[in-house]
């Protein structure tokens, strides 16, 4: 198709959406290049799912334009639906149907004949390691198996663009890992993926680039490393003995950073300029100041840290937790 050309797989320009008084999305711009994985990061209620629903034609934006594979999500919705796959956090499979029946149904709804849909279903069950469970109702499946089947359902028509809405939320670590491997294989085969997640490690592992969304606004874009750099690298966390002098510890650690250490109870935190030797230096300084230490570690920034750094006090606004 000529319209496909070499333009990006997903192009979002100025998309806004409100539910009543609540602004779910505010002027979001986003580009996803073909064959890449972009992670849409943000806390619950940030607007990630709303954006995915708009891009998969389930929801109409109030304003702005969005194209997937050159097709407008509103005007060309019918054609677009033939070329995208959606797997959601709620594992949308019919729990009273078997794995094979689910996939066959989806295949037929894509317009395939029963026999072809069934053959494709078997192929996918094999690929997703669900052959033994093929003829069992999916209500007997584990959470991880359901997610795999849900993902398989999204792949029935071999879509070039795949939307994954929090694909591993609520899964145990092993299921998460196996789902990650499946997604990595798809990407290696050239599928473009837009992935929403609350976990930085998931984005770290899967995504080429990350877009951070909060309160419906896109607040940062880049690789996960770039985002972590913006947070200010690594941080030293020191847990003091219960009877230790917190102020003495803060004074002792202050020279290690451009920023003043923060203290909360017996926990003292300080961003460090240089990773190498930071722990040794901290132990040395604290023992010279005669402060008792219970535990001490260097911590990589988490999504929470990225958020705090990018949004300032937004973390408090978002969680609605009252200040003590």
């Amino acid at each position, binding site marked *: 198709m000529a319209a496909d050309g070499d333009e990006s797989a997903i192009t979002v320009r100025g998309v806004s959406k409100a539910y009543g008084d609540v602004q779910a999305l505010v002027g979001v711009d986003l580009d996803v290049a073909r064959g890449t994985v972009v992670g849409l990061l943000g806390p619950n209620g940030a607007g990630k799912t709303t954006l995915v629903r708009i891009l998969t034609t389930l929801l109409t934006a109030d304003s702005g334009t969005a194209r997937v594979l050159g097709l407008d999500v509103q005007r060309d919705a019918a054609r677009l639906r033939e070329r995208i796959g959606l797997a959601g956090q709620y594992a949308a499979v019919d729990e009273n*149907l078997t794995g094979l029946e689910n996939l066959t149904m989806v295949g037929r709804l894509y317009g395939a004949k029963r026999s072809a849909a069934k053959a494709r279903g078997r192929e996918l069950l094999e690929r997703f390691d669900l052959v033994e469970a093929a003829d069992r109702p999916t209500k007997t499946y584990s959470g991880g198996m359901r997610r795999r089947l849900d993902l398989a359902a999204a792949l029935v028509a071999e879509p070039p663009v795949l939307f994954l809405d929090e694909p591993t939320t609520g899964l145990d670590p092993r299921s998460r890992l196996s789902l990650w491997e499946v997604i990595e294989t798809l990407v290696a085969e050239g599928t473009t993926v837009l992935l929403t997640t609350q976990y930085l490690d998931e984005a770290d592992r899967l995504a080429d680039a990350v877009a951070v969304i909060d309160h419906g606004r896109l607040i940062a874009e880049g690789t996960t490393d770039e985002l972590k750099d913006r947070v200010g690298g690594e941080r030293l966390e020191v847990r003091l003995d219960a009877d230790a002098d917190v102020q003495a510890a803060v004074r002792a650690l202050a020279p290690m950073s451009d920023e003043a250490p923060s203290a909360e109870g017996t926990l003292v935190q300080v961003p460090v300029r240089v990773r190498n030797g930071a722990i040794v230096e901290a132990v040395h300084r604290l023992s010279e100041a005669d402060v008792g230490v219970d535990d001490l570690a260097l911590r990589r920034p988490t999504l929470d840290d990225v958020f705090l750094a990018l949004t300032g006090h937004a973390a408090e606004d978002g969680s609605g937790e009252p200040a003590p």
Partner: protein
Amino acid sequence: MRRALSDTLVIAERNLIRLPRAPELLLAFTVQPVMFVLLFRYVFGGAIRTPGYAYVDYLIPGIIVQNIAFGGFVTAIGLNEDVHKGLIDRFRSLPMARPAVLAGRTLSDIVTNALSMSILLVTGVIIGFSFHSSVSDAIAGVALLLLFGYAFSWFFAFIGLLVSSPEAANSVGFIAVFPLTFISSAFVPVASMPEPLRAFATVNPFTVVVDEIRHLWLGAPHGSLWGSIAWSLGIIAVFAPVAVARYRRAAGQ
């Protein structure tokens, strides 16, 4: 158009495949109506005067109409679950015909209604019911019942999309339909009711349809085939559009 039909059939087939795997639903339209038939026939039957007919002959058309009107609750519960479990999202992300989800749903109700009607007729015959009419009239009665049941499937489709949980769908449907079926000629002659109820019962679509079934199956007077068809089509004309509108809204959030 062909695509719309085949998608509708795929959805209807899916609804029927899953039915035997939800035993509580299966019980609701097999064992429960049989229980009702036996209770009415043997507990109330002796005390109810139905001039000109044995009570079992009078009862079977009434209880089948009641039962078939309730048949749509499978649609209410099923649609409600589909919305909450994300299946509607899945369907809407597929290049399938838009109306197929609701059309397939109500279509599969016709099959389940036919099944439960057969169970009731067999039970009826065992306890003494018999047709007093031609085969063609008996079949016309069956067809009318399926149409009336289909009309209520659209009512239940609307209810299923309106309320927040399958349980609520069930009880709202029950509260709406149960009094309608009892304040009608389904179980007792309308003439035995006090005035305000009798007036209501006379215009109640259940009375219109039950009387017509008795006309077609037993040769009773006072039936109105066109009245019955008009009620059925009227119910579809009201509830199909609101159900479709509700589906679009429920799915667009």
